[in-house]
């Protein structure tokens, strides 16, 4: 008896069909074989068992494979017979799966791929924070104190800039650079491609003597010369020794979203012996590696204790409201603002796929009708229900995988579009590719999709088993057709509600983007050319040299034909911004040692405001008379005026800026107020800003000059047509100063919203796709219902119903489905759009107007989708419709 049980268990290795067809017989034969073998003793029994076990182990997998092959062959054969159905289904699935795969490739590139550092999960970002500034940079004394006192973290920091580089060929190139603390690459655990990291003695306070090149720069400028280490490269006109080359695809933290990544690393000099009582000058981006066993919570607690001590030690310096230090996992700190839009996109594109599945399921149900005969025959021939379901699921999976394959083509093109829209401002998005992980994802998606849209039709078609099927052999049985119709109508309702959610989402994004683009930026980007240049310290050591260069440049460019105005600024709206700087206002007491005011600061030449079309509100604009030996003046924006001079006229008032490592700043008289500019982003209201005339500028650190400035040129015609003339002027003044970031201000403005635009384009595309898919689904169901009701329509028309009333009947039937779906979709939208709140500008996630627009859009789509079949219904000829019965 137990022998039988064991044999039955073994049989489980065989395909279900084989077991159900022959299991009993096999058991019986095996019993007889055992009985006979028992006569020959234990050895005989063992031989029979061994033989049987070996055979079943060999046959099981082979038969499973055979059966699968048969199912696939059958599925392919039946697909060949239904080219129309297959084409529509494959296109639908290709769009759904392709879009999902493309989005996944971006998610993979941005969110899933590990940071290019060893054990990156142990890296943290370290920020100062105070009221209104959740993530502020560190100053030298702060960094030194934190890193010396912390026992839970090893610190590193970086500061970005840009430099002129020239290699052996002598061509100068302007590239992004970063000064990094000596242990940076060790903290990041980033192995170099060539050479070594910096040594402590190389962090010289004056100018760097050594540099590490990015892999890209090494290839570009030095043709990937493997012997480059030890050779000199010219940085800002000074030779420095190349000591190493970074690995490919390396980037420093905080450069995830930066338009350009540092191509040159130099050691950051900090003097631990310098007095630490001047703690302003926040410019360091700091990060750290947690020591073994340390947690983020422990590190945070430790920093709280350290900051508490420092606040007591330097009460005047740490009086910003609620000063503290945040320690956050590096990954979430860097990706924080990227994960929300990507998760929303993933959700949205997932809904699109569900819609596509519903459409294909609908098609399969219709096709199920026409296949009832075939399936009934197979049932009659003894195919089990299980076998039928498996066959149908195999067919849907083959279909879905074909769709997935076609989807890869769609994904490829989608991805190229995404990358094109992402532009250089989103380097991680640009690194998206159809790699192995993405291909596996597409395949899994294909199988999941196949099961999803195959399940309902498979169960529907095979339900009721032989009884239903034999009925089908005779004539369509009313009951199941009704059931199937109900399923199809339910699918359409689901589709409409999914489409509703997507259309509302897309609508909110589009409205938000439109409002953003219409928002007053404060400057006029029309016909403005801009480019940036930076003067090396070696040849432009002090203010007279720097100011002299920009004076000549702007004056000469102003005289070019076709130039309306020209000027230069240390910042550039929407592209280059500075931090803030505290200042005293004459006659206004300090709160302790705290300055009564602070503002973002910029250095400008005459012509800057005119070229950018920034209006003068009061007083005057900078002029060439604001020279170094003239009375010192300053210009402010409206927000500064409103914030710090609420009930008085600021013009004529005097201010004095703080100093940290330099001479006492002079008192400066406010000479003019200019209009607000949304400097930090179109979606960010203006901050208080002050503008120094370039000849009177004096940095808070002694000797620092505004060496990097953006030239802005307002032209009479196409700004880009001015490029060669302006470049000729540049060469005439100093051929060794290259211009970088040459573009017009519309481009600057457009790049600043690239991520939002990408989001709008994708959400808009998903919304449109959803509408089309829902319309196709509705069209299919209404058409089918018209075909089913031909006789009824014929009767109605015969007894005098007007064509209009037949039209109304059919259309209202379709619209009923739309109304139910739209209602459900609205409820779902109310819940789901909340997740978009942080991505929206000037629009609430429950913006009533967008909900109305989406509803109307869906109703109109529904109207069109039902109208076409309804027209067909009105053309039914009553005589032939009745005769056909």
């Amino acid at each position, binding site marked *: 008896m137990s022998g039988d049980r064991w044999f039955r268990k073994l*049989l489980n290795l*065989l395909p279900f069909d*084989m077991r159900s*067809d*022959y299991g*009993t*017989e*096999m*058991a*019986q*034969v*095996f019993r*007889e*074989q055992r009985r006979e073998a028992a006569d020959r003793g234990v050895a005989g029994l063992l031989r029979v068992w061994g*033989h*049987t076990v070996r*055979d*079943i182990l060999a*046959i099981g997998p082979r*038969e499973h494979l055979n059966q699968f092959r048969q199912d696939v062959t059958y599925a392919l054969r039946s697909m060949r017979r239904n080219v129309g159905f297959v084409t529509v289904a494959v296109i639908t699935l290709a769009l759904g799966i392709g879009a999902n795969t493309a989005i996944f490739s971006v998610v993979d590139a941005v969110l899933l791929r590990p940071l290019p550092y060893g054990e990156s999960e142990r890296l943290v970002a370290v920020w100062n924070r105070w009221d209104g500034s959740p993530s502020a940079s560190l100053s030298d004394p702060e960094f030194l104190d934190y890193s010396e006192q912390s026992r839970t973290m090893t610190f590193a920091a970086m500061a970005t800039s840009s430099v002129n580089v020239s290699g052996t060929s002598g061509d100068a190139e302007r590239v992004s650079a970063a000064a990094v603390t000596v242990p940076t690459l060790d903290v990041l655990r980033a192995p170099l491609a060539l050479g070594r990291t910096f040594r402590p003695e190389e962090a010289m306070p004056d100018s760097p003597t050594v540099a590490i090149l990015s892999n890209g720069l090494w290839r570009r400028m030095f043709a990937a010369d493997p012997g480059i280490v030890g050779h000199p490269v010219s940085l800002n006109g000074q030779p420095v020794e190349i000591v190493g080359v970074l690995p490919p695809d390396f980037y420093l933290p905080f450069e995830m979203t930066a338009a350009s990544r540092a191509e040159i690393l130099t050691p950051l000099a900090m003097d631990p012996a310098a007095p630490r009582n001047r703690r302003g000058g926040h410019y360091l981006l700091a990060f750290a590696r947690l020591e073994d066993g340390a947690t983020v919570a422990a590190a945070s607690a430790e920093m709280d204790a350290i900051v508490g001590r420092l606040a007591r030690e330097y009460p005047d310096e740490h009086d910003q409201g609620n000063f503290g230090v945040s320690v956050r996992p590096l990954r979430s700190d860097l990706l924080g603002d990227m994960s929300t839009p990507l998760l929303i996109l993933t959700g949205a594109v997932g809904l699109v796929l569900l819609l596509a599945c519903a459409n294909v399921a609908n098609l399969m149900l219709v096709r199920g009708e026409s296949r009832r005969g075939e399936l009934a025959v197979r049932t009659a021939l003894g195919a089990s229900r299980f076998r039928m379901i498996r066959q149908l699921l195999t067919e849907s999976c083959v279909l879905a995988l074909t769709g997935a394959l076609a989807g890869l083509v769609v994904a490829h093109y989608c991805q190229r579009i995404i990358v094109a829209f992402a532009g250089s401002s989103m380097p991680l998005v640009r690194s998206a590719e159809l790699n192995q992980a993405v291909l596996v994802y597409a395949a899994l998606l294909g199988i999941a999709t196949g099961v999803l849209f195959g399940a309902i039709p498979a169960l529907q078609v095979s339900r009721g088993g032989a009884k239903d099927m034999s009925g089908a052999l005779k004539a369509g049985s009313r009951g199941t057709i009704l059931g199937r119709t109900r399923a199809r109508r339910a699918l359409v309702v689901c589709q409409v509600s999914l489409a509703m959610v997507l259309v509302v989402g897309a609508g909110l994004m589009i409205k938000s983007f439109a409002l953003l683009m219409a928002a007053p930026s404060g400057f006029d980007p029309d016909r403005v050319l801009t480019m940036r240049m930076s003067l090396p310290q070696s040849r432009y050591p002090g203010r007279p040299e720097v100011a002299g260069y920009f004076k000549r440049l702007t004056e000469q460019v102003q005289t070019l034909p076709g130039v309306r105005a020209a000027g230069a600024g240390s910042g550039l709206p929407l592209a280059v911004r500075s931090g803030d700087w505290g200042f005293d206002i004459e006659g206004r007491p300090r709160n302790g040692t705290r300055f009564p005011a602070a503002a973002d600061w910029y250095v400008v030449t005459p012509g800057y405001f005119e070229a950018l079309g920034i209006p003068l509100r009061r007083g005057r604009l900078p002029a060439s008379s604001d020279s170094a030996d003239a009375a010192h003046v300053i210009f402010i924006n409206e927000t500064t005026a409103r914030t710090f001079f609420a009930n008085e006229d600021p013009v004529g008032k005097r201010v004095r800026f703080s100093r940290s490592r330099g001479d006492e700043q002079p008192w400066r008289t406010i000479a003019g107020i200019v209009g607000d500019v949304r400097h930090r982003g179109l979606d960010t209201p203006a901050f208080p800003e002050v503008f120094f005339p370039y000849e009177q500028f004096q940095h808070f650190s002694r000797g620092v000059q505004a060496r990097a400035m953006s030239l802005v040129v307002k032209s009479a015609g196409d700004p880009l047509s001015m490029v060669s003339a302006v470049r000729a002027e540049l060469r005439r003044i100093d051929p060794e100063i290259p211009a970088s970031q040459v573009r017009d201000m519309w481009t600057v403005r457009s790049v600043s919203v690239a991520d939002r635009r990408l989001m709008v384009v994708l959400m808009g595309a998903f919304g449109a796709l959803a509408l089309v898919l829902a319309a196709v689904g509705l069209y299919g169901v209404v058409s089918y219902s018209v075909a089913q009701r031909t006789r009824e329509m014929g009767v109605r028309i015969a007894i005098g119903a007007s064509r209009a009333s037949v039209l109304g009947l059919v259309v209202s039937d379709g619209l009923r489905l739309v109304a139910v779906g739209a209602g459900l979709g609205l409820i779902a939208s109310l819940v789901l759009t909340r997740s978009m709140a942080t991505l929206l500008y000037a629009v609430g996630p429950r913006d009533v107007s967008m909900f109305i627009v989406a509803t109307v859009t869906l109703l109109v789509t529904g109207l069109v989708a039902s109208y076409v079949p309804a027209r067909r219904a009105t053309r039914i000829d009553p005589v032939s419709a009745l005769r056909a019965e």
Partner: protein
Amino acid sequence: MSERDPAQLLPLTSGMFQVLIALADGEKHGYAIIKEVARRTGGDVTLSAATLYTIVRRFVQEGVIAESAERPDPSLDDERRRYYRLTDFGRRVARAEAQRMETALGMARAKKLIPKARSV
């Protein structure tokens, strides 16, 4: 189905061929087929239950054999047993396989790999 070419199924495994031979002179149930094959081959070919029914299943699907509707005398019959018989197509398949083997034998003889057949 009537004009199917038996050659499509060739060559057969020795187990398959032996099953056809066993059924050539009348219908049999599974265990009887195994016994017949073992006896005829002197124990060289012993089919396990799993192997036999894999062959039976394939042959039924291909229309080479069929479950017999007629049952022997009920007193001799165990009702759980199913009997199988060769179809006409199956008979042609068996013949085609035998001919295929004969042709192969002929080639081997022509090359004197094996002695000429003794005439009976």
